[in-house]
């Protein structure tokens, strides 16, 4: 990692720390009103109050963990599916099965992500886990495609074909010939999925999917408080800034990382 990349990594780590450790900070009640709505900041309440007179500082600290947890869980699950399906379809002898599998994946990738997320939320109302599962489902086809393409390229190399001709099994070939070359691509792909998943999780919160009010959630805070931005803009700006810093820094980090992920930002947009 170059020094420049470390500089970019600092804001990512900061926001992740606020999101994950925030709920442990004893900053007062997240749900109890402490004053008038949209009151300006005071020494006691450094970010003022929100639409229902609740402490914005406490809510901002509490509202990130669920988003990051959803994004991380969806990224891990989607990458796992992507690795399993993508590598199998790229390495297997059953070329026809692999090809039809990829056609199915293409079809699934064409379905609008937000629509699928909203459908799942109708079926499992107020469920944060359903939102995470939904994000994993909509992002997995993109991971499968990228990892399949790389795995198929690695499977066509001379050393991989030698191993195949020697009669080595699918698992052995995958472990010793495919996976070592696939790791950088898989990591970059996971990064792209993480940004898209963060955006989707925040959008889900914004649209009121997942656990309902009064639970704090950065996405929902932006929505709840956009009417009072003229009186106290902080309940909108703070969660928005945290989300933007996280998403944009990770996007720029991936953009600078390697050649294999060229057009990475476009793929984020396509998935979110």
């Amino acid at each position, binding site marked *: 990692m170059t020094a420049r990349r470390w500089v970019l990594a600092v804001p990512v780590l900061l926001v992740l720390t606020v999101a994950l450790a925030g709920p442990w900070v004893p900053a007062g009640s997240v749900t109890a009103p402490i004053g008038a709505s949209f009151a300006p900041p005071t020494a006691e309440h450094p970010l003022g109050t929100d639409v229902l007179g609740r402490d914005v500082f406490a809510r901002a600290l509490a509202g990130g963990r669920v988003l990051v947890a959803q994004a991380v869980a969806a990224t891990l699950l989607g990458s796992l599916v992507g690795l399993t399906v993508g590598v199998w379809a790229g390495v297997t002898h059953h070329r026809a099965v692999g090809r039809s599998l990829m056609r199915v994946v293409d079809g699934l990738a064409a*379905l609008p992500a937000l629509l699928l997320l909203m459908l799942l939320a109708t079926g499992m109302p107020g469920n944060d886990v359903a939102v995470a599962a939904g994000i994993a489902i909509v992002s997995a086809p993109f991971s499968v495609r990228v990892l399949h393409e790389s795995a198929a390229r690695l499977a066509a190399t001379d050393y991989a074909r030698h191993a195949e001709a020697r009669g080595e099994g699918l698992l052995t070939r995958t472990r010793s010939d495919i996976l070592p070359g696939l790791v950088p691509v898989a990591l970059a792909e996971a990064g792209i999925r993480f940004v898209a998943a963060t955006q989707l999780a*925040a959008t889900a919160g*914004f649209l009121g999917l997942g656990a309902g009010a009064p639970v704090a959630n950065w996405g929902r805070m932006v929505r709840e408080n956009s009417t009072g931005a003229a009186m106290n803009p902080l309940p909108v700006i703070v969660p928005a800034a945290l989300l933007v810093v996280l998403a944009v820094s990770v996007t720029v980090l991936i953009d600078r990382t390697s050649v294999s992920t060229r057009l990475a930002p476009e793929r984020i947009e396509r998935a979110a």
Partner: protein
Amino acid sequence: MRVDVWITARVVTAAATLAVLTVIVFWATEVLPGDAVGVLSGPTATDAEREAVRLALGLDRPALERYLEWIGGALRGDLGTSLVSGREVAPLVGARLSTSLAVLVPAVLLIVTLAGTLGTAAGLRHGGRLDRWLSGTTLGLIGTPDFLIATALLVLLTAWWPVLPAVALIPPGQSLWSHPELVVLPAVALALGGFGSTMRLLRASVAQTVTTPFAEFARLNGVRGHRYVWGVVVSNALAPAVMALAVMTAGLLGGAIVVETLFNVPGMGSELTQAVAGRDVPLVQGLSLVLGTMTLLLLLVGDVAAKLLHRHAPATSGGHR
């Protein structure tokens, strides 16, 4: 592969995807626990009352039978009645679609103009100052979730510099099409969300065309100015560009859910958010079906158009795509 065979295969794939979508829509709304019974019987209902509602809705019948009945109705244009308002779903979706298009069409035109001009300019001089500046800006736009861009516009232009109406309040009986001033803000918000990735794709496509041997040949032969830009670069970068525009427009259908909800535009997206919140199952099904079908159709048209355009392009790009 012959082009007509390719197109037939592509249409069959799209039809199969649509069939999968109908199964997902039905399964998510009727088989998962959050079905219509909870909405109609209310939170205080006893088990016996809930069972009575289930029987009245016919939810005791096998799921396959109900699915086939729903699909049969949808094919005849009958999408059932809303559980909340009691109105017929099909005409309601039609009215919402018209409002959504009033925002979507200007947004698409805006993106095509801006992304087309800037993408071509940046791609012609890739690595130049405009290119680097646009690259940074679009990276920021892409990293930012669409709802934040829309909220930022809303807050900036209504709270701090109130020149445009924030909320699309349409007088009853009139259509959004006759009120352009209400369209501006949601259309710009929608366009900003899709601008970044489209601009980058067009730029990449133009930049790639510029470096091809035939473009260099044309330059060396003294083809300059408009003839070079239009005749050599744009016409050859068109196939991927059409593809990018189709993908972008399909993406805007999803972005419209957020923008319409935020600006209270009574289109398909805001109706879907409300229907999901109220678990109005027939309305969610109808809206999802129409939104999904439109997305798949757009992608199909984009794919076929790109294929036809590419067929006429000179085979210099290695022939793979």
